């Protein structure tokens, strides 16, 4: 089963190694990982997608919580959260297919963020299945390069992160 874990931690050198190293050391799988600053100065937040049953999830969470720089690690319930992924695709555009490609771009709410000669860079944002969906639709065109971020997730309602 797939789980999303949120980790609030100190933004210090090596914290990434400690978090990701813990997963490999304990034999936990990382499906995706994204990390960035938060509204709290000096703090970072990871969103990690992992697979395993509930017991594995609980072990992951507790082991993360043991890291000295981790302030809080918790499981994010899919139904109670807004989840987003971001993707960039570099596509070669044939003149005769330009119009239909543009239709798909509009349909999946992608944006053309760069265009030079016959090459476009498209930006897609959405939950995992929307991004999957966009990739499916662009599959028939010549994708030169593509890249996806890991998922980020935020729960609806009041903050679960402790305030000072």
């Amino acid at each position, binding site marked *: 089963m797939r789980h999303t874990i949120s980790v609030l931690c100190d933004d210090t050198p090596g914290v990434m190694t400690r978090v990701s190293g813990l997963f490999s050391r304990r034999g936990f799988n990382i499906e995706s990982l994204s990390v960035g600053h938060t509204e709290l100065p000096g703090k970072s937040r990871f969103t990690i997608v992992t697979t395993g049953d509930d017991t594995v999830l609980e*072990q992951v969470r507790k082991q993360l919580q043991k890291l*000295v720089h981790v302030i809080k690690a918790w499981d994010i319930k899919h139904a109670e959260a807004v989840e987003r992924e971001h993707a960039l695709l570099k596509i070669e555009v044939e003149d005769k297919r330009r119009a239909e490609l543009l239709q798909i771009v509009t349909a999946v709410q992608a944006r053309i963020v760069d265009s030079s000669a016959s090459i476009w860079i498209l930006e897609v944002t959405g939950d995992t299945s929307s991004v999957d969906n966009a990739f499916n639709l662009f599959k028939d065109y010549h994708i030169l390069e593509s890249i996806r971020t890991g998922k980020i997730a935020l729960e609806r309602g009041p903050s679960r992160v402790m305030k000072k």
Partner: protein
Amino acid sequence: MGKAKLSGAKALVRALESQGVEVIFGYPGGATLPIYDELAKSSIRHVLSRHEQGAAHMADGYSRVTGKAGVCMATSGPGATNLVTGLANAYMDSSPLVAITGQVPRPMIGNDAFQEVDITGITIPITKHNYLLQQASEIPHVTQEAFFLASTGRKGPVLLDIPRDVQLEVFSSHQAKYPPLEGYRPTVTGHPGQIKRAVTLLKSAQKPLIIAGGGVSLASARDLLVQFAEKADVPVVYTLMGKASFPNSHPLCFGLMGYHGRIEANYAITNADVILAVGTRFGDRSTGPLKTFATQAKIIHTDIDPAEISKNVPSYLPIVGDAGRVLEQLVELIPAKKHAQWTLELRQTAEEHPLKAKSSGVTIPNILRILKSLVPDPIIVTDVGRHQIFTAHYFPVDSGHSFVTSGGLGTMGFGVPAAIGAKVGRPDRTVIDIAGDGSFMMTCQEVASAVAEDIPIVVLVMNDYCLGMIKQLQDASYGRRYEACKFGRNVDFARLAESMGAAGFKVTREDEIAPAIEQSLAAGRPAVVDCVLEDPGNVYPMVTGSSLLEYVE
């Protein structure tokens, strides 16, 4: 102190002094010389090892008998990597340690400089936490934090990696503000609701049992455990790490549990209806096959580390907290009760299954029997192997912090240096290392350290000219094909000891055992007794099947 200028090295030594550090076990090198230069001006004693692994085990042994964090120090590169086994050993057994390593100067980090190694990277999985110091002004705060982390919550090793130029950097000492450790808040007191539920469960039990783990000793909660067991009349079994957590000769004590456990201990686990497990992580050597482990029992698991709850064995009722504090809470609420039928059942099982090894001749059980009669209450240190399990069974330990062994990592070579550390920590006690001929040779050079530093330990080498535990496994599972387990012509350990300035004895007959031990104790310097075993019998009981009750005894 105003704005006194001081170097990183001086700040470190001051910080160590203010932590009450009395001794550092170490080995110098180019990258730690500034610290040594300051150490020379300090009252802190330095014990020079002959190998950095030895220094780490010494600090570990020191910590296990004193309850204080042990300190070891090594230089950068190979010095630091030589600490790795010692750190892993301390980590597995939750031993509080502060390790200090030198590092190449900051501008050279990452350039593959001479004797450069990424020791913080290497030790992430085997330390509770580690630091690469970036500037001298951090040293006072970080050192304080390192001791705090090492010796609170689930204890463990913490490493400080200090670049040489940081040691030399001069800074104005002032009280800088550092953020608190927001994410580090160990739970000490057991949740009152869980305590009440535990008491209710224990009250209802017909066949209650206590599993005493090493956490009881780490929390110095042995007396409270005795109090609880006596008040509630609950039998006790122990893990290898928990051997000193309950007096072994106590009528409620039913011995070592697990893979090499006593029949009555494993019988108790299998038949108990409620188990109170205190300060144990249910390591595989203590549980045996998990599927059949304690299936009749509702398990109350109390541990300082929440991640241990239901990690290996599902717990019916978890109590996160310090073993001492939780036992205090339990003792207060538990009513006095007798479980005469149950304890009788266990006593009968014990009588039906006495330990069966030969108790005469130059054998490990007989040597241990004679040792016990000559030295009733020593600190016993062991190495790792067959002699270790023999010692767990045949040498009752009745005082706290008096059994030092490498339980989790199973580090051969732990014995001699750990005994040295133990003797430094408790010079008032007799410290005896029970070693194997394999284990002894892994760190025997530390006998020279003991001689030079005047640390009179006694090492009894159980010499069977082979790797006993390997041979036993090859007996059991590899058709007696003794590949790579026999040493052939062995070293003359008595002469080896003498060459290092220690007293050396050789025992080949039963009547030589007692005199050799007596002379070792009277030698006034480190002593090594080469006990040439006549019949290196295998150590039993041993679980051979899919449950704790399928065994060879």
